[in-house]
Structures are given as C-alpha cells and as structure tokens.
C-alpha cells in the first residue's frame, strides 16, 4: 500500500502544480488545495502507516496494551489541515475579490504590479 500511497502523493503534488500553472484563478485555488492535501498525505505516509490501531488508550487501561499508530504525524496533519482551511478560505475570497476588482479571470492579465510605474 505504501507504494500506492506514494503514487497518490506524487499525483496530488503533480496535479496541484499543474493546476497552479494554468492561467485561471479558480484553477489556482484548486491547485493549492490539492497541493495541500498532498503535503498532508505525505506527512501521514512518512510517519509510517499502521492499519486499524488508532492511538487511543483502551478503556480501563492507563497505557497501551498493543501496538498503536504513531500519533505525532496525526497531530501535525490535524494542525496543518486546519491551517490550510484558514488559508484556503482566505484564498477563495481573495480570488473572488481580485476577479471583481481587476475584472479578469486570466492571471496573465494581472501583471500591472510588475510593470514599472
């Protein structure tokens, strides 16, 4: 399964970048979201995956009795997911405003700030 997950991660990264490289504002956001998912999954994968053993101490016990999945990557991903949520919602609104103010969906037309004034 690791190989499949690695391929998925690669696919997410690739599709994310591919979408960012398109000129459309909406695709840009989708690309960023895909990329973020890829990064989360990568942490998950590299933290080593364990099937069916959630890191929750069983009832009536103070310590783990059997093996458990490494909780650290999970905590990191949780933080990362929530942060990306904040960033993504901001991004969506930013795109909406930018579209409205600049009146274009084409990123190639948003280059006034790089021109000398």
């Amino acid at each position, binding site marked *: 399964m690791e190989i499949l997950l690695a391929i998925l991660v690669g696919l997410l990264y690739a599709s994310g970048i591919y979408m960012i490289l398109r000129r459309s504002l909406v695709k840009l956001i989708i690309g960023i979201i895909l990329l973020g998912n890829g990064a989360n999954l990568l942490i998950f994968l590299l933290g080593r995956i364990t099937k069916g053993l*959630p890191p*929750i101490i069983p009832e009536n016990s103070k310590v783990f009795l059997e093996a458990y999945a490494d909780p650290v990557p999970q905590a990191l991903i*949780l933080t990362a997911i*929530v942060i990306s949520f*904040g960033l993504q*919602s901001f991004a969506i*609104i930013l795109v909406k405003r930018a579209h409205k103010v600049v009146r274009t969906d084409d990123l190639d037309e948003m280059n006034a700030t790089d021109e000398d004034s």
Partner: protein
Amino acid sequence: MKTIILRTASNYLLPVLLLFSIFILLRGHYLPGGGFVGGLIAAIAFVFHSFANGLKNTKSLLRFHPGFLMPAGLALSFFSGLSPIIFAGDPFMTGLWYHGHVPVLGSVGSALFFDMGVYLVVVGVTLTIIFTISEAP
C-alpha cells in the same frame, strides 16, 4: 431548498447538532473528537440552519456577531495556557488538573478549557467567513 420540511427539520437539527458538537468537544480527551471537530460540527449546524431559514433568522438567533466568538475563544485558550504561570509558576501551557473525578468529563484541567477556547474560535471563524460571504454582493 427552503422547503418547509427542511426548515422544520433544521429547527430540530440545530439543537441536536449543537449538543452533539459539545459532546464531541468534551469527549475529545478520551475518544476521537475535540475542539476542532466539535467547533466545525457546530458551525455546520448553523450553516444548515441559515440555508434553511435564511441568514437573518440565524443571525437573530445568535444575537451577537459570530466574530465576537473569536477573541472570546482566543482569550479563553490564552488564559488557560497562562493559568499555570499565574497560579503555579509552571511554564506556559502546563496542564493544571483538578484532582478528583468529575462525572461525565473524567478529569478536569486547564486543557479542557483550552479545548473549549478552540471550539469557540472555530465556530466564530467558520460562521464569520460563511456569513460574510453569504451577505456579500
């Protein structure tokens, strides 16, 4: 979307989901759940309510701007993180625990208040974003 059935359903759904979200929040220390998920569920509950009943109704139900929940939640989390410095001279974020067992919750400590802060912030943030978008032209 605004059918009567949905509206009625959401009227019941809201308190149920809210209760559920609080349940998720409180049990987070023992089972999957916690402030984040709890907050998100509560927010989704309000969002559904607003879809069904209109934004205005949901807002009047809330009575205050959801944005207010953000500083409130932050303050709660911040002070529960700060409490060990103030009360025990321990470092920031050190857990302070009430010794003894409280029914339903298990142990009570500063971490719980911290998680409540998280819950409030998440609700505040999500609702602020969604409400603002819904209102925007």
